[in-house]
Structure formats: structure tokens, C-alpha cells
């Protein structure tokens, strides 16, 4: 019993450090007062290089705020998306992106999701890659403990409870692992891109007919890359082609 307790303490100590580190990086951001709006273009260039090198969500977010203050909605949305790609639980980036979308000329292209779908998206966003990794670790450990409980359970008693607990822990652990794998894959192969030109024409997928005009900041999903065009899905599901120079991808530097 004593050894088990010691082992548990050591495990909690190791795990605790990681958990607190996660909390720290997500929640202890301090806000500056107003006025820190603009930087010189040179420093902005430097900031872009630093952010692309470090791939830090806060740095991407700060770039988004900078570009928004300059009125460049396309680049602002791109950097907010880059921040969310690294950390989907980045609440400030989510807030600013929503605001930017709300006031964009293409706001009506974004569909209004059902309440339950919105909740599901929020839950998925809350579980960022790092949070999911910790979640998997916790439930793996709980599964081990549940297994231990089951194996040392009094044979005279009904074993339904430890079996249920073990099954639940294992199911959550496996589901979290699968979600983590999908999120990691999405992080590396994010198909989202942002229109960066003030306005550009969305061409038909099969011809050069103009379907509609789209504006800076519109978030599209790249389906396929062609010679000079991307085949894209608009947020409302409309399929069309956009010139490659009109959009920037989230995973590109």
C-alpha cells in the first residue's frame, strides 16, 4: 500500500508540472493598455519572421491584432487562424476572428450553425492538441488505476462497478487519442486559407465564368491546387476557383 501511494505521488508530481505549464500558457496573458496599436513595418517583418520560426500562438495572435489595426483584414484573419491552428483554445484569437468576420462584407457567406453543433465545435476547440495530450495521459493513468482496482477487487462482491469504470476510462482514452491524432493531422495539413486581396472574382470550377466577387478576409477551404488557381469551398459550401495570388494558406509561411 505504501509503495502504491509513493508511486502515485511521484506520478502526480510529474504530471502536475505539465498540467500547470498548459494552464499557464493559455490563461496568464496580460493585456496592454490602448495605444500599442502599430509597429513600424520593419519591426512587423521581424515579428512575422519570429512568429513563423517559433510557431507560437500568442505571437501569431499579436500579428493578427497588428494587421487588423492597420486595416488589413485579410492578413489579420490569416494570423488569427494561424494562432488557432496552433492552439484552438486561444480565446482572444477566436474573439477577434469572430469580430472580424462579423463586420466583413462577406459575413452572409458564413452559415449559422445549430446550437448543438456550435456547442460541439466549442468543445472541440477547447480541447487543443496539448490539452488533449494531457487528457489522454490522465485517462490512461485512470484506466491503469481502474484495472488495478478491478484486479484487486473483492471476489465475493459484484464486479460491475470497477468494470464500468475501467470501460469508461478506456473508451474516453481511446476516443481522446483518436481525436488527438485527427487534430495533429489537421494541424499539419490545415486546408484553410484566407483571401488577402481587397476583392477578387470567384470563378466557376469548370470555366472562367465569374460566380461572385469575394473580399479580403474571407476564409475558404482549399480542395485542390491547380496551376494558377485553387479549387476552394466557400463557408456556405459554394465551390469555385480563386487565383493563387489572391489567397494565403494557413500552413504556408
Amino acid at each position: 500500500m505504501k509503495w502504491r501511494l509513493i508511486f502515485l505521488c511521484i506520478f502526480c508530481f510529474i504530471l502536475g508540472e505539465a498540467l500547470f505549464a498548459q494552464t499557464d500558457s493559455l490563461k496568464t496573458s496580460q493585456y496592454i493598455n490602448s495605444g500599442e496599436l502599430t509597429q513600424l513595418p520593419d519591426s512587423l517583418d521581424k515579428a512575422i519572421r519570429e512568429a513563423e520560426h517559433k510557431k507560437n500562438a500568442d505571437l501569431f495572435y499579436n500579428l493578427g491584432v497588428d494587421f487588423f489595426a492597420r486595416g488589413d483584414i485579410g492578413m489579420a484573419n490569416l494570423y488569427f487562424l494561424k494562432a488557432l491552428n496552433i492552439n484552438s483554445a486561444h480565446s482572444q484569437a477566436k474573439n477577434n476572428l469572430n469580430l472580424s468576420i462579423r463586420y466583413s462584407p462577406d459575413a452572409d457567406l458564413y452559415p449559422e450553425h445549430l446550437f448543438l453543433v456550435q456547442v460541439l465545435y466549442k468543445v472541440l476547440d477547447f480541447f487543443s492538441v496539448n490539452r488533449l495530450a494531457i487528457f489522454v495521459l490522465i485517462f490512461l493513468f485512470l484506466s491503469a488505476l481502474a484495472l488495478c482496482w478491478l484486479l484487486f477487487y473483492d471476489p465475493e462482491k459484484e464486479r460491475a462497478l470497477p468494470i464500468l469504470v475501467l470501460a469508461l476510462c478506456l473508451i474516453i482514452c481511446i476516443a481522446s487519442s483518436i481525436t488527438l491524432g485527427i487534430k495533429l493531422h489537421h494541424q499539419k495539413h490545415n486546408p484553410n486559407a484566407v483571401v488577402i486581396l481587397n476583392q477578387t472574382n470567384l470563378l466557376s470550377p469548370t470555366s472562367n465564368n465569374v460566380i461572385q466577387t469575394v473580399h479580403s478576409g474571407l476564409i475558404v477551404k482549399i480542395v485542390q491546387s491547380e496551376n494558377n488557381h485553387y479549387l476552394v469551398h466557400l463557408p456556405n459550401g459554394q465551390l469555385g476557383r480563386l487565383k493563387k495570388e489572391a489567397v494565403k494558406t494557413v500552413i504556408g509561411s
Partner: protein
Amino acid sequence: MKKTILLIMLFPLMLSALKIDLSVNKYVISTNDQLEVTLKITDSDRIKVVEPTPPSIPLFSFRNMTSGSSSSVVFEGTKLVSEFSETFRFFYFPLKTGKTTIPSFQVKVNGRFYSTREINIEVVKGTSKAPSQSAPSYPNFGAFGFDEPDSWDDREQWIGDSFLLAIPQEQTIYRGFPTIVSYYLYTDEMVRSFNLENEIDSDGYGKSTYEQPSVLNYENVNLNGKQYKRALIKRLAIIPNKEGRLQAPILEGYARLYRFSYSNKTLRSEGGIINVLPLPKNNVPASFGGAVGDFKISYSLSRKELSLGETITFTLKIKGRGNFNQFSAPEFASGKGFQVSTPMVIDNLKAGIEGERTYYYTLIPQDKGSYELPELSFTWFDNYSGSYKTYRSPKEMIKVSSANVLSYFNRLRQSKTPKAMLPKVVKKHFPPYVPYVQQPWYWILVLLIFAFSLFVAFFALDSKMKRDNPERYASLKAEKVLLRYLKPATLAAKNLSLEFYPLAEKALFEYLASKYKLSNRLSTKEKLQALSQENIPDWLLEEIQLFLNHSQAARFMPESERAVNLDEDLNRIRKIFNGFTRLGKNKHNRSTK
């Protein structure tokens, strides 16, 4: 009564903000002019309009149509007022003089049909003269104006000249003030189309496209006493960033002429010289942040009384023409009692130089009481007066009361619909991002958990066997002991060491002790007697006895015989252990049967 019911039924429609307006540029139009029919649909919500078919107008020939959409969102107090509009423009050429009517036609808006009004038009013979324009900054050309047009069918027009002229809107401007340069094609030939091929830039300015028509829209002008037709090719917005004589971009392209057959004529724009003056260096206000333009500033405040937890939206509007892309948001002076967010910027600008920019600041009160709103100042250089101007927001007193239940709910509602841009995150250190799953400590922990699980499972299975089948457990334990002791005994036998006998003897008694719980305190004879009571076969007891005798004798054995006896006794002890193992298995099988 019926009328009243009808009015009540139509009341919701009257409340609707949907407006459909049909207008024309002229009610009396000359034969050399063109008719522009504008259909504008506006609503407070987003609208879906099916592109209308251009109406057929007697005496007119339809030429082309354009369409556009716009939207604006304005805070009026706490209310968000939005306007969305779709505009369709139809262009017609008059064919004959006379009176005609634009017939009513249907427009489908948001799935419903609406009819336009009829408009009466009169076409007269072209005799009107357009007002004169300012002179271009092209040294060889004087002022020009509209004049009687000549017919395109006139053969004399077929031999003539065509050229491109760049005409800046202002010839002398201050550095940073944007001006618009218009590029016109002047011709007295039959130019059917113009292809723009190249734009040659020089130093000292930034540029953006202000307007680029898709068709050649001719008007008649008089230049240096000669009649020309001219059409706008392009308008560029130029923002000078260097003082002195500035050359606007030079456009190159070719005109496609018709002289019995088609031919191309390469053209290059001339003119476009702008004198750029430096900004005065004296009396520059401290708050000047580089804004140059012709601006009108206005502000609005969402409320003056609020509770803790609620916010105020301060809206600053900058309207006019200027270098909007080269200045940042004005800052509030540091004041007591409010935290001010980074402003949200909404631009409604044409080519980035003309239109309206709106800054939305969110002010959050930090304590209850009456506070003076911090001052917001914006300084710019006015191009036309040649002086610096400063706008200061008027002093406003804000009353902040204690938080209440309503303000709490307001905050909940506000959190759902964000109204302010959140500021940047400030940290001392931004570590590079490496997912936890790509870090070694993560996988060490996973391995530890798996190792822990395996250990626990093994231990639990062991305990389970001890609990459920103690005999089998004891047998397995005995076999382990046997293996443990027999190993060194076998090694000693191979090395012809006399250590074999004590090791084998010890292994045998340890095994018997663990299997039959025989005490080590008993003598060899007593142990054998105890074993005989455990239903051990006689041959096995005899073999044990024989081995123990050999063990006793081995202590006095000559070295030459040792090899033969050791080998024989090693086989014997193995036979004994196998006998016990088989005995155990038979017993186990019997018990399971």
C-alpha cells in the same frame, strides 16, 4: 372599413425598410449623349436580388449594364444600424429624337417580385455644351471643353491622331496627400478598343487603382482648338512620398483602329507631372502621426450613464481623402477610471484613399463615480489650407453606478457578441511551440503507465492464483525453487565440483519444504517418513534415499570416480524432480477432473 383593414394588412410592409428606386441621369437627353438608368435596392438586412433583365426602351438601343453592392454598419448610440444595397446600371444610346417611356419592369428581391415605376424621357437633337474643365498639367495643351460632336461616319475622321494623356487632379500637393491621375485616350479616329499593356513606374510614390472602366465611354472635347473624342482608360491614386517634381506612372498600350480594316496603334501616356511640396517643419503638433488629407472628423458616444460591468463605445469617424494607410489609430490621453481597448477599425474606402474610416473604442469603467472621459486628439496636415489641424474630443462626464443584475446580464450578452478587438498578449518570453506528444517526457510517462499496468496485472494474477488454487500455487513456487537450486547444482556437476551434492541436496529439501511444507528442522530420516505419508510412490522414495546415500559417500570418493558418479547422480536428481513434477500434474489433473 375595407380601406382600414387593407391599411392594417399593409402596415407590416410599410414598416419594412426595403426600398426600390429607379432613376435616370437625364429626363431630356440629346442624341449624342447616353442614358443611364439606375436601379437601387436598399434594405436594413442582407438582400438577395435576381439580376433584372434590362427593360426595352423605345427610341433607345441597349448598350451594357453594370452592377455593384455595398453595405455599411454604423453604431447609433447603442444601436447597430446596418444598410445593404444592390445597384444595377443600364446604359442606352438614343437612336431617334422623340418622347418615350421607360416601361415598368419586375425585380425579384428576397424571393418576392416588385415592380418599378414608369419614367418619361425626351430625346432631343444634340446641341448642348458641357461645362469646361480645368487645364491638364500637360504643357502643350490648353483648356478644353465639350463641343459639337462630329459624326463617326465622317470620312475625314478616319485619318487623324490618337494619344494618351495623364491628367492629375491636383498639380501641386503636399507630401503624403493622395491625388488622382486620370488617363484619357484622345482620338479623332475610329478606335474600337484599347488594350492596356504596361504601367511604367518611377520613384517617389505609392499607387493604387482608383477606377478602371471596362468599356470606352466617349465624350466630345475640344483640345487646342481641335475636336476630339476622349474616353477614360484608368484612374490611379498616387500618394507621393518624396518632395519635388513627380512623374506619374506612364501607361502603355495599343488602340485598335478601324480604317477600312482593323489596325493597331501603340500609345504611351504623356503628361502627369505633379509638384510635391514638403510638409512644414515649424509648429508641428506633438500628436501629429503622419496623417495628411482633407478630413472631416465626428464622434459619438453610446451612453453617458452606466453600471459597473457595462461598457461604453466611443466612435470616431474620419471622412474625406487622405493617406489612410499611413497613419494609425489616435490614442486616448491617459485618464482616470477607464480602461480603453484597442480600437476596432472599419474602413469604407475607395482605393484606400477616399471614403470613411471608423474607429470603435470600448471603454470599461473601473470604479463607480463620475469621471471625465479621457481626451482623444487627432492631428493631420490639411493639404488645401497648408496647415496642421487638430481635432479634440469634447469633454464628457460619465456617471458610473454600482453593478446590478441587469448589468451582469448585459455582460453575458456582450460576451456572446464581441464588440471590441482584444489587445495584444504581452509576455516576457514566447517559447517555440512543440506539441506535448512530440516531447520525450510525454512518452516516458506513457511507458511508465503501461509498465505500471503490466506489473499490477502480473501481481494480481499471482495473488488470484494463490487465493483460488493454493495447491497449484505451491507447486509452481516449488518448481521455481527447484529451477533456482538445480541450476547451480547442474553447473557444479559439469565442472566436476563436489559442491554438486550439497547444492542438489539443498535444492531437493527446499523443494520438498515448499511443496509439502516439510520443516527444515527435521532429520533426513524424519523427512522421508513424512514423505511416505504423503502418498509418494516407493520408487521415488527409494531414489531419494539412494541419492542421499551417494551424497554422504561422495565426501570420501576418490577423484577418478567422481566424473562417472556425478553424471549418474545428476541424472538421478533430475529423475526425482521430474517424478515430483509429474506427481503434481497428475494430482492437479485429478482434482480438476
